């Protein structure tokens, strides 16, 4: 690379960083004050692009029309943010931590279908910025003028935000709430208003980030999820709550990607940001400029202790599940096999997320690696199908040994994001290693042995294996090991003081959960006959989280109920309506608002009230 090329790629990286910074800044601000992991932030970005496109078409492609459209679009997205906050999130602030994630996940689904309905499926290529559509020559290379403008906008917005946060009363309140929101409430500040205003500002930043991309990015329906992952990464690499850190991280990632491309390693851009995040988090557990997280004193109510189920409960269910295939058509077995796999997957996620207190955003890694391990052992190593199925979970467990060792050193959202980094790195290897994993196409011909070929028979095997996995995990929760995990979650200091090696136990829990997720993945792979990288993807991890939260993270059987309801709903809705995504989102929103403790938690509370009455 010549010096000129290096300079231009540096500028490219800076321009790419600008919008990413705006989105991440909004995400960081919202998380800091409300502790909400706003999964819908990417959707707000996407809406910014779509609305700006329509406004500019309406106002005309003049400088006034363009910039007016951009600013109005950002404000409109801010209004959407207000609606989301007041109509949905405000009602569930007292729910268990992360429950709001479920609500924002549902909002993603609704916004996606709403955008499809309003703007249609075709990509919308916006106009160039009037007067700024050309390029300037730097050292004999051309770079678009608009890119230079974007490079300036990032730091400019940072400066404005800095002034807002340091020089205004609102800013003082936001900073105070970020440090200790209960204290701010106790001092008589109207938290509802503060949260709404923060959500508005965060949404405006996301909308602005999207609207400013109009000359660079066609409005399309895949933007939401592709942006949200990047924004999470930037926020965490920079350090939660640090806007300067977010800018630094956005620049670091933008420039690193531009140089991957410039140096001819374009395939690395698939995973570059996640590698950077992994390295940063291992070296600096709170991101580049972040500080240790303030402990929220009452993030909802403290989780109630779990109670072991009575023996009649599992025996009854086993009896019911055993006779179902005899009474129904074969498709019921097919759906129940899926539910069995996802139930074990969700229970294994709940195992580390609930009782062990380690949230994982990348649990699909172990599900997917288990599935791939089964497929590779069967197809490439030539093992009998039964052996491949039984060995696969231990391969996933081996990965959990390695990944877990790093992850348990962190806590909270940082831990969650490190699990995501490992999952994405695994995904990109699976996605690109054609010789072993079949690359993006995945692998086919992973059918069970002849005696298991019938779905009715495979159903009993799936039920047996997944049921055994769930039984082991539940049994462990009520063993001394399980109590140690809960001690480590509820009071790490005291646990350490009485001589418990909290990290060591967490690590062991991580490996056990990973192994069980791997078992779920292997059973799943052989039930489908084929696998593709989507079993390791963010979508699969999110599904797991949704199942756990939907059922209720503070309950034992919640994840199983969540897995069953979510799988069944998706299957049924997809058949009934074209807009099944919005339908699914609305149903989840309804559940979220009616049962802020999750389905099982909510039903338990109802039952308790009925008993008391």
């Amino acid at each position, binding site marked *: *690379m*010549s010096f000129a*090329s290096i300079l231009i*790629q540096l500028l*490219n990286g800076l321009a*790419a960083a600008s919008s990413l910074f705006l989105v991440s800044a909004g995400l960081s601000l919202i998380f800091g004050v409300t502790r909400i992991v706003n999964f819908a932030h990417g959707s707000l970005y996407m809406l910014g692009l779509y609305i700006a496109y329509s406004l500019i078409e309406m106002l005309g492609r003049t400088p006034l029309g363009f910039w007016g459209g951009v600013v109005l679009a950002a404000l409109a997205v801010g209004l959407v943010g207000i609606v989301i906050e007041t109509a949905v999130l405000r009602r569930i602030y007292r729910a268990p931590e992360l429950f709001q994630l479920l609500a924002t996940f549902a909002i993603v689904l609704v916004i996606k279908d709403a955008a*499809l309905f309003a703007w*249609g*499926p*075709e*990509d*919308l*290529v916006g106009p160039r910025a009037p007067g700024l*559509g050309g*390029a300037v020559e730097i050292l004999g*290379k051309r*770079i*678009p003028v608009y*890119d230079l403008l974007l490079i300036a906008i990032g730091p400019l917005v940072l400066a404005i935000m800095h002034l807002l946060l340091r020089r205004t009363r609102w800013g003082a309140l936001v900073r105070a709430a970020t440090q200790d929101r209960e204290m701010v409430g106790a001092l008589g500040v109207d938290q509802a208003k503060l949260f709404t205003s923060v959500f508005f500002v965060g949404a405006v930043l996301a909308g602005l980030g999207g609207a400013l991309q109009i000359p*660079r*990015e*066609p409005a*399309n*329906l*895949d933007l939401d999820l*592709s942006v949200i992952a990047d924004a999470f990464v930037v926020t965490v690499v920079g350090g939660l709550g640090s806007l300067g850190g977010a800018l630094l991280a956005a620049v670091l990632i933008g420039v690193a*990607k*531009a140089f991957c*491309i*410039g140096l*001819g390693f*374009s*395939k690395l*851009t*698939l995973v570059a940001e996640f590698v950077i995040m992994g390295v940063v988090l291992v070296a600096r557990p709170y991101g580049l400029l972040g500080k240790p997280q303030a402990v929220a004193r009452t993030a909802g109510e403290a989780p109630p202790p779990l109670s072991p189920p009575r023996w009649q409960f599992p025996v009854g269910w086993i009896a019911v599940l055993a006779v179902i295939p005899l009474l129904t*058509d074969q*498709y019921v077995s*097919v*759906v129940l096999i899926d539910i069995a796999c996802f139930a074990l997957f969700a229970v294994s996620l709940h195992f580390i997320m609930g009782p062990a207190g380690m949230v994982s955003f990348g649990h699909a890694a172990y599900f997917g690696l288990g599935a791939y391990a089964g497929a590779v052992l069967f197809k490439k190593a030539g093992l009998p199908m039964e052996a491949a199925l039984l060995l696969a979970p231990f391969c996933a467990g081996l990965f959990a040994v390695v990944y877990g060792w790093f992850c348990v050193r962190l806590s909270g959202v940082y831990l969650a994001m490190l699990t995501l980094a490992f999952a994405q790195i695994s995904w990109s290897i699976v996605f690109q290693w*054609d010789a072993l994993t079949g*690359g*993006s*196409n*995945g692998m*086919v011909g992973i059918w069970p042995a002849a005696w298991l070929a019938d*779905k009715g028979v495979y159903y009993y095997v799936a039920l047996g294996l997944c049921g055994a996995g769930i039984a082991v995990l539940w049994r462990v929760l009520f063993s001394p090991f399980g109590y140690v995990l809960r001690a480590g979650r509820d009071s790490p200091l005291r646990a350490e003081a009485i001589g418990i090696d909290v990290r060591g136990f967490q690590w062991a829990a991580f490996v056990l959960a990973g192994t069980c997720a791997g078992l779920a993945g292997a059973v799943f792979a052989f039930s*489908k*006959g*084929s*696998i*593709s*990288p*989507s*079993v390791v993807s963010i979508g699969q991890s999110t599904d797991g989280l949704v199942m756990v939260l939907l059922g209720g993270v503070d309950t034992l059987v919640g994840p199983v109920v969540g897995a069953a309801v979510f799988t069944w709903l998706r*299957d049924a809705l*997809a*058949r009934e309506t*074209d807009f*099944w*995504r919005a339908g699914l989102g609305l149903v989840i929103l309804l559940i979220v608002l009616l049962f802020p403790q999750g389905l099982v938690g909510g039903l338990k509370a109802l039952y308790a009230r009925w008993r008391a009455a």
Partner: protein
Amino acid sequence: MLTRNRLLAGAAALAALSAIAPVSAQEPIKIGELNSYKVFSAFLDPYKKGMELAVEEVNAAGGVLGRKIEVVSRDDNGNPADAVRAGEELLTREKVAFLIGTFPSNVGLAVADFAKQKKTLFIAAEPLTDKIVWDAGNAYTFRLRTSTYMQTAMLIPDAAKLKKKRWAIVYPNYEYGQSATAAFKKLLKEKQPDVEFVAEQAPPLGKIDAGAVAQALADAKPDAIFSSLFGPDLAKFVREGSQRGLFKGVEVFDLLGGEPEYLDPLKDEAPVGWYVTGYPWYDIKTAEHKKFLDAYQAKFKDYPRLGSIVGYSTVLTAAAAIKKAGALDQEKLVAAMKGLQVGTPFGPVTFRELDHQSTMGAYVGRIGLKDGKGIMTDWRFVDGKDALPSDADVKKMRPAN
């Protein structure tokens, strides 16, 4: 008010209707269809319309085997596992005769393997991957759409004619882009042994860093570029490339750039002079296309995209296969598919006995501008059978069943 008399009259009318239409008295033949409607909606929305039109036409002509046909569609969410589950549901619950559809390669391959396991006919509509009929081909799977290899091969004569030495390549980083690139390099090298490939960029699908990619390509000083980008990636690449002067004095080929799905969003920025394959629906004068175009526009008040052709022709293929087989027995259907001839808007196509690939062709031409919209100019139709490798090569790739 609803009186008894009116009720009786209604019942009589119904009875009369069923008397003159004995076909409707029988259950329709159900055909199971899977596709990623929500994930690739730009392509699959017109595809669905094409299917609807074909179903209507087939049934208006009396259906097949004396029965109407009905397509039962399921959204597979772009996910092979969901597709296989939906396939199970279609076969066991809906009792469909066989399966058609799918869009992304990984879903197509998974359903093909599922069809083999279930010994059920599967007519893959859109997946471009070469593997579905070659490396991973099986006895029960047939594919309609012109494949990656075929479309690439159709561009080779133009590419070789230019006698450009330094080529740069850009492709989305997944199987389709990789196959297109491999096929292009191999075929061009055969025609023009002194060709040099000076730069290769493989951005992730849907996430191209277009400025940096355009710059890196320009740094390699290519004489010509071969791209297999499409959708938002293509739009971004076109805009950044032209702003940065990448395309000045450089010939560019884009594999799918002429398909209305990807060309139309570019509007007046459509890159004039690029060599593409696509679908110039506004210019095709053949009788079979005109009939299709008129019917489509009358029904939907919209112009067809390439997806419409694929959806329409897939359903016609399914109907023709049933008609030829004379029964819904899987082995008879598979036998009927071999060598089956179907009249599509692109002219007659044959499903080859050798590898189950149809000979559907494609339009090859250059991008032009007309009334602020991208169009294809100087186009010609290339028959699919002329863009396939030799029978011996195909036999080597395809596993014996």
